[in-house]
Every structure is written in structure tokens, then in C-alpha cells.
């Protein structure tokens, strides 16, 4: 077994003529189409990975625009209507002195989505171009993007809670705005974009160089 061990060191499943399962890690002969252990579809590399990444990226980016331009919340206080966008909501919190919460919302609704668009575009561009890349930092970047993306949903839930609870006769009423749905879609699409990225191709690019 010691000999076999040495043989596989530093070898990828693909280079060994095998295919590894993305979910359970088990290894199968190259042409197996479905993992016998966990039943997932097997592909050595998701070939259309980058196309899918870009398709979802654009869908997310397109919905992120109206999400910022249209109101997230419509508030009526003693019959006086006002509405606030994502950024408006953050500024309002700052005005009330809730710095920490303002930061949380700003981080979740603006920094994460924008950072995610930049990070995914950067990953996809660098991978396509090939050449000298630092696989470990790119891999870390992808892990962070995949982990943090779902947290953008915070603002959608804030709107849901406020519009469910704040209905006090004529005193104060809060209703959701169109931006809520655009923002939710944008988050879902960018999550799908990050999920369609096949991290294994990051290391392929590095190998080609070597």
C-alpha cells in the first residue's frame, strides 16, 4: 500500500484518469456519470462553469440597480407618506445614532453585494485569462464569497418584520417597497453565481503553468 500511497501524492483525480465527487469526495472511474455513494452527478470539471457564473452574475447585477433606486420601505407616520431606499435606511439609522446597526445594514446590503460582484468578476476573469495566479488566495476569496453571500438577505427580512409588525391604525404604518423583491432576487442570483463556480478550475490553471 505504501507504494500506492506514493503514487497518488500530488496527483489530482483528473490527472489519474478518475473523477472525484464534489459532495462526498469518493473517487470513480472517469466515465462514471453518477456517484454511487451519494448519487450526485459527476463531472471531472463543470465545463460550462464560467458561463453559468457570468449568467447569474449579470442577472444579479441587473436586479441590484432597481434594488438601490426604488424604495425598500414605505412608511406613513400620521398620514404622512415617506419612503426610503437601502442607502436611505442606513442614513436614517446613522441619524438616530445607531451606528453599529447602521454599519451592519450597510455591510450586508451594500458592501457584501458590491464586494461580491467585484470578487466573482475578478475570479472569473483571472481564471479565463490564465497565466500567473495565486491559487490559494483565489480559493480563499471564493470560499469567503460563497460563505458570506447569503447574509445579504438581512435587509429583506428587516423589511418583512417591519411591514408585518408596524401597523398601528393611523399612527404609523410600514409597507414593503418594490426594491425588496429586486434585492432578494439579486441576492439569490449572486448566490447561484458563486455556487456555479467550480473551485477545482482554480488549481487547474496553476497546474498548467507548472
Amino acid at each position, binding site marked *: *500500500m505504501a507504494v*500506492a*500511497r506514493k503514487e*497518488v501524492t*500530488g*496527483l*489530482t*483525480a483528473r490527472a489519474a484518469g478518475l*473523477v*472525484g*465527487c464534489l*459532495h*462526498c*469526495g*469518493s*473517487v*470513480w*472511474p472517469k466515465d462514471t456519470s453518477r456517484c*454511487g*455513494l*451519494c*448519487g450526485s452527478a459527476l463531472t471531472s470539471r463543470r465545463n460550462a462553469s464560467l458561463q453559468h457564473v457570468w449568467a447569474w452574475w449579470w442577472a444579479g447585477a441587473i436586479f441590484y440597480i432597481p434594488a438601490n433606486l426604488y424604495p425598500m420601505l414605505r412608511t406613513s407616520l400620521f398620514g404622512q407618506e415617506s419612503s426610503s431606499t437601502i442607502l436611505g435606511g442606513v442614513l436614517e*439609522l446613522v441619524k*438616530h445614532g445607531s451606528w453599529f*446597526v447602521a454599519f451592519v*445594514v450597510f455591510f450586508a446590503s451594500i458592501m457584501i453585494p458590491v464586494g461580491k460582484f467585484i470578487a466573482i468578476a475578478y475570479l472569473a476573469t483571472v481564471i479565463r485569462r490564465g497565466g500567473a495566479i495565486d*491559487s490559494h488566495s483565489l*480559493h480563499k476569496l471564493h470560499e469567503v464569497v460563497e460563505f458570506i453571500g*447569503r*447574509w445579504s*438577505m*438581512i*435587509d*429583506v*427580512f*428587516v*423589511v*418583512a*418584520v*417591519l*411591514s*408585518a*409588525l*408596524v*401597523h*398601528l*391604525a393611523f*399612527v*404609523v404604518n410600514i409597507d*414593503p417597497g418594490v426594491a*425588496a*423583491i429586486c434585492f*432578494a432576487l439579486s441576492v*439569490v442570483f449572486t448566490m447561484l453565481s458563486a*455556487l456555479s463556480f467550480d*473551485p*477545482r478550475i*482554480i*488549481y*487547474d490553471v496553476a497546474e498548467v503553468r507548472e
Partner: protein
Amino acid sequence: MIQEPPPTVPTGDLAELVACPQCDLLHHVGNVSEDASSRCKRCGTVLFAPRTGAIERLVALALGALVLMVVAVSFPFLQMSASGFSSKASVFDTISAFTGGLMAPLSLATAAFIILLPVLRLCALIYAVGPLLFGRPPVPGAATSFRLASRLKPWSMAEIFMIGVAVALVKMMGMASIGFGTAFWAFGFLVILVTAMDAMMCERTIWRLLAKR
């Protein structure tokens, strides 16, 4: 769907190998020992993290979370009062906040993210892993349900909902006084249980356990 064959590990030498799901590097599983996690040599991804009693704790936490979810949807969640008026909201009200026209799909999505998908995920986990506790062979469909549970993970957002609730409370502090209902605390504990469960669950180890018997 066609009837799925029971989970099996690959035959021969392949059974001894595992490919890192992040970078495709092959590793030997022969030397993965009990209570020691093994990481990919190249990218550091955790390949296996077996722990004694992991299955027991996993099932216990999932059952606990499921019970708390029942409490969370059947009791009042929050209430607010100002200028002599008051209003109450249950978790269901929160979901149906987006009603009417364009907002209806958002209601459905919220329901899915904070209740339906988490519940489905917990049930699928218990169904797939539960029988292992009693030394039984995996039930038919165990692989399908465990696969479902792992795919649902990014889409169950109970913990994100709780942060959203916290932000909403801060926004309301100025205009009204807030009361916390039983469901609020139930949901809070549920988030803690699910987080603990996710932190200790090692999917690849469980897959191997599902195939072993």
C-alpha cells in the same frame, strides 16, 4: 425519479481514495483516524472530521431544533405598542407581510427561507441519519434525503432572519415599545441549535457511514 440503488463505496483500490472537492487532489483515506480531522494537503479543506458521538449529537440537535420550530410558528413572535395602539405579529404574519401583486412571490420566498426549507432540511437529516443511531442499515431513500439536506444548507436562513429581526427592532425602538413573545425566544434558541449542528456536522464522514453497513 427512478429507484436509487443503495449507497456503495467504489470497489477495489478506489475505495481507499478521496478527491478533495475543492481542488481535486487525491488522498488516501486509510489513515484517517477516529477523532482526528484530516485536511487536504494542498488547499486545507477539511476532508473528514469524524468525532465520537457525532451522530447522536447531530440527531439530538436536529430534533431539538424541529421542536423549537413548532413552538416558533405557533406562538406570538413580537408585539409593539405606541400611543395606545398595539399590534402583534407571529412568524406567519412576517411571511405574509409581502402580500398583494408583485410582492406575493417574496412572501413565498421568505416562507421558504425561514420555515419550509429549514424544516425540510431537519426532517431529511433525521430521516437519513437517525437509523444509524440504532445500528440499523440506512432506510431506503437515505441517500436522497441526505443529499437534499446538504443542498438545502445555503438556502435555510433562520439565523439570517434573526439578525434581520434584531435590526428591525433597533429601527422601531424610537417609535414604539416592543414586547417579545414565546416564539421569539424559541426562534433564538433554534438558531443556536442549528448553528451548533452545522459546526459539528461532517458531510463526507456521514456519507461513508451511510455506505458502511
